[in-house]
């Protein structure tokens, strides 16, 4: 049996003020890419229909991180010298951190961050003569929000 939730769409029941408010909140969350239970659920549908690929640099970063995190420990006789060497290197790191650039922009990470670039590839047909600018702004902001979250992630494993 087909289950229809609404009782006759053809005669759409007028929305209650509360429903209008909820619909508006959903619309805003969808457009702004903000957290909202229903917006999150709707967005998750895209990942069922056509999940985007994992960006290669993110994959390489995750592999790199996992390999280093799970590195085997040194042999016992090297532990003492290893600790001493680590302390020495840490001294160097302290000097870097106290006077050097922000570690989150260190080249090794920065090199993998998503760069600014033309938005032309987001559009596949000439723009309408009138109107549509707001939709283009939405599209650009939405696309770059994704890149921005990726960059946050790459910078420090921050939960986007």
């Amino acid at each position, binding site marked *: 049996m087909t289950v229809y939730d609404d009782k006759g769409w053809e005669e759409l029941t007028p929305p209650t003020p509360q429903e209008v408010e909820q619909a508006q909140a959903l619309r805003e969350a969808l457009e702004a890419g903000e957290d909202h239970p229903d917006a999150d659920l709707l967005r998750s549908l895209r990942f069922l229909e056509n999940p985007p690929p994992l960006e290669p640099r993110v994959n390489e970063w995750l592999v790199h991180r996992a390999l280093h995190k799970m590195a085997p420990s040194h042999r016992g006789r090297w532990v003492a010298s290893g600790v*001493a*060497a680590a302390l020495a290197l840490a001294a*160097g790191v302290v*000097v870097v951190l106290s006077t050097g650039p922000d570690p989150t922009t260190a080249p090794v990470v920065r090199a993998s961050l998503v760069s*600014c670039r033309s938005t032309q590839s987001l559009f596949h047909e*000439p*723009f309408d003569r009138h109107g549509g600018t*707001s939709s283009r*702004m939405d599209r650009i902001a939405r696309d770059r929000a994704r890149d921005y979250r990726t960059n946050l992630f790459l910078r420090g494993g921050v939960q986007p």
Partner: protein
Amino acid sequence: MTTKLIRLVFLLGLLWGMGCSQRSDTPCVCEATPVVDTALMAFLSKAKAAHHQADLLEQSGQVDAAIEVLDKVTSFTQMSDRAEVREVLADTLARLSDLRGQRGQWEESEADIRKGLELAPSGSYFEGHLYEMRGVNEERRAKAQAEQGDAEGAQTARRRAIEAFERAIQIQDSVIRRELSDEGADR
């Protein structure tokens, strides 16, 4: 032997630290391209909000107020090294030009187009759209001048409109061709 090794590593560690901390201000080659960051997102958010606000104002017939809102976006002159910022500004200028054209502000609308063309990437929909908007405004101008009895002015505006539309079509065609060939290459 071990003591010597530790000393050596300690020294190297310190030297490395000092060397890095005294790096020159010259950016590394990998830092040359700006990345998608908070500043860019803030700008995009501002532009998005301004355009939606302008939509509402336009819908209620308040074109001057819409122009004022969009002017605040285009007065932003920083971060011009970011492609997204240049394109958003170019698109906003095209819209401003359209709105000013509706008000008969011919010189101002043409100034928007010129500014937009400096920002839009060559051979893009953004550039094509700006030329199209120039055509629209020249067409409006021709009509207005004809109504005022300025036949010669109207004729000149009409010619400029045709040139602008032709240029727009030419650019859009080249973008479409490029798109199709890219798709073909992907197959």
